């Protein structure tokens, strides 16, 4: 009970707000500076392909590490122990799919979106439309989760529930995200992500070193102290503290692992970043440096999570508004008082802002470039018009995200992050891999796989305990949950791969010449933009 009042009364909103404002001002100045360079679609969507490997690596990390990673992973470790670490491992290992199979060939064969690669060898209009739908779905799920997260962060910082501050924060985050994207396009978004990553890693390394320093730089002692403080004792150092209740919950965990490891390389905002550099070689360097940065970040999360368990204690964390998500802010307050809490809160908002900006530009590219320019106008559209549609789309997405998040602000929407990964792994990854590597893949295979993966993963969630039938459901009083798992990946990913195969073998006429062209262009870069 103490925690709520400790964070509620002792924090200074002025400090939190002040640090966040500094971030906003610096990023807005950069947005305005890069503004005039936005003239072509290549400028707007992929920053003229001008970033270096290191810059893009940091931007990828800044785009990828969301509030779920910063607050969620360490929080889960602080409460459930080892099971929180399992997320971190999945989030990291997943990058090998991107590095080994997807990133470079995508860079060589597409322009802005994932649909570009499918349209290279399949019938353009149906595959672009399908890919755009799943892209927008993934982006919206992820956006809602992030923005509702921003709202609850404010609750935590002000120590209140359901305040007006929550809605205002959501609106401000949404507004800023639209401003960045609208004025500065991908260039501005990238710089916001790079700066955010710098702040995030600085905060994470500083706090980890601080925690380790308190225990004589002996990680084993941190773990020992966490064990002493936890009601579960040494169980927190073993797996299945969170997922071990039954075989069903273990299957749920495996299902989540599948979505994490296969979804990452198919997240639209991540894919888009692969295009922002001059060549596939630089894309490769971007991904490899991102792997290093993301790995370092999750190692810090491990220390922060167990550090929060040791220094703050799981009971105090669970009693705070925001529960597990308050572990890192409470740890910051414990270590460095109001000032460090202010800094960490500003970092958390910067984190959310950078991710939502990346999502917005990915969704706007999917609509403007894929649906408007190629499906509706069949490719005959002037650059200014495509840009105008992209900007309008950003505003529409911003409005939907703000309205949706304010409506859902008191719901537990953390499942939306896992759902975004599951949809990406089911609807996007199979078609990307088939397009790049399977000669006999056809349009029907792509369309069945995308819509099948999308409908099945969302459908299973609707009929899962996430939505009805349990006290923590969205609708606790309704009971239509016949699917036992909260994560659909275990079922939806294999079915989507199967549908891609089935659709292709029942349709003749895969374009062998186009596939040959894709292979040559994908591997050599000849003719790539």
């Amino acid at each position, binding site marked *: 009970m103490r925690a709520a009042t400790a964070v509620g009364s002792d924090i200074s909103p002025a400090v939190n707000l002040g640090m966040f404002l500094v971030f906003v001002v610096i990023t807005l100045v950069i947005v305005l500076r890069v503004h005039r360079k936005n003239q072509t679609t290549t400028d707007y969507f992929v920053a003229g392909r001008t970033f270096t490997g290191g810059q893009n690596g940091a931007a990828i990390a800044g785009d990828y590490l969301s509030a779920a990673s910063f607050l969620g992973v360490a929080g889960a470790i602080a409460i459930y122990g*080892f099971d929180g670490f399992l997320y971190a*491992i999945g989030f990291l290992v997943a990058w*090998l799919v991107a590095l*080994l199979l997807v990133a470079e060939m995508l860079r060589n064969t597409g322009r802005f979106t994932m649909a570009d690669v499918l349209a290279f060898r399949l019938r353009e209009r149906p595959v672009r439309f399908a890919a755009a739908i799943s892209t927008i779905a993934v982006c919206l799920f992820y956006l809602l989760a992030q923005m509702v997260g921003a709202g609850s962060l404010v609750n935590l910082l002000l120590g209140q529930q359901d305040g007006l501050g929550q809605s205002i924060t959501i609106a401000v985050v949404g507004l800023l995200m639209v401003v960045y994207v609208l004025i500065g396009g991908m260039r501005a978004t990238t710089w916001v992500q790079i700066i955010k990553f710098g702040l995030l890693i600085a905060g994470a390394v500083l706090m980890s070193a601080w925690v380790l320093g308190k225990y004589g730089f002996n990680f084993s002692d941190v773990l*020992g102290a966490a*064990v002493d403080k936890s009601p579960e004792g040494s169980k927190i150092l073993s797996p299945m503290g969170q997922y071990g209740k039954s075989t069903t919950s273990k299957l749920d*965990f495996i299902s989540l692992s599948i979505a994490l490891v296969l979804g990452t390389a198919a997240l639209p905002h991540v894919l888009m970043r692969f295009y922002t550099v001059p060549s596939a070689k630089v894309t490769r360097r971007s991904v*490899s440096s991102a792997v*290093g940065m993301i790995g370092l970040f999750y190692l810090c999360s491990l220390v922060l999570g167990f550090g929060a368990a040791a220094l703050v204690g799981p009971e105090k964390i669970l009693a705070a508004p925001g529960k597990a998500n308050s572990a890192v802010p409470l740890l910051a307050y414990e270590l460095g008082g109001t000032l460090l809490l202010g800094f960490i809160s500003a970092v958390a908002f910067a984190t959310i802002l950078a991710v939502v900006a990346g999502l917005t530009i990915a969704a706007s590219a999917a609509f403007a470039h894929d649906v408007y320019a190629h499906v509706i106008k069949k490719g005959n559209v002037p650059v200014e018009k495509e840009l105008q549609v992209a900007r309008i789309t950003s505003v529409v997405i911003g409005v939907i995200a703000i309205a949706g998040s304010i409506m859902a602000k008191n719901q537990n929407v953390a499942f939306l992050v896992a759902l975004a990964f599951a949809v990406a792994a089911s609807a996007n990854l199979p078609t990307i891999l088939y397009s790049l590597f399977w000669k006999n893949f056809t349009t029907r295979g792509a369309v069945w796989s995308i819509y099948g993966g999308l409908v099945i993963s969302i459908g299973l969630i609707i009929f899962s305990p996430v939505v009805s039938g349990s006290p923590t459901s969205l609708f606790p009083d309704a009971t239509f949950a016949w699917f036992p798992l909260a994560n659909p990946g275990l079922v939806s990913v294999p079915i989507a791969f199967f549908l891609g195969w089935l659709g292709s073998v029942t349709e003749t006429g895969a374009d062998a010449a186009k596939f040959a062209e894709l292979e*040559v262009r994908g591997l050599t870069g000849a003719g790539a933009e």
Partner: protein
Amino acid sequence: MTSPHGARPTPEAYLKAHATPEFAELRSRFRRFSFPMTGVFLVWYFAFVLCAAFATEWMATPVWGVINIAIIFGLLQFVSTGIITWLYMRHAKKELDARADSMRAELETVQR
């Protein structure tokens, strides 16, 4: 839309390049590394996931102080990810880049 690096090859040029032994060599060197390595890290990762789910007792065995097999296994996933990334970067630099660059240069200049 032309490439900034050179002329965009014609469909015929792509087909011709696709049939060359140089391209077959490049593709096979790419696939012979990436495909098995994907298999390796997926098996290694899901071995960890399955042990975490079903071999909980074994994973809880202490090794050094309070540090148990689960934590070491988890940290080894970080190590393996780093090593595979490094190996792929080295492989791409040594085996793929020169081949890809020379094919690209040829394809983008022959045309007009």
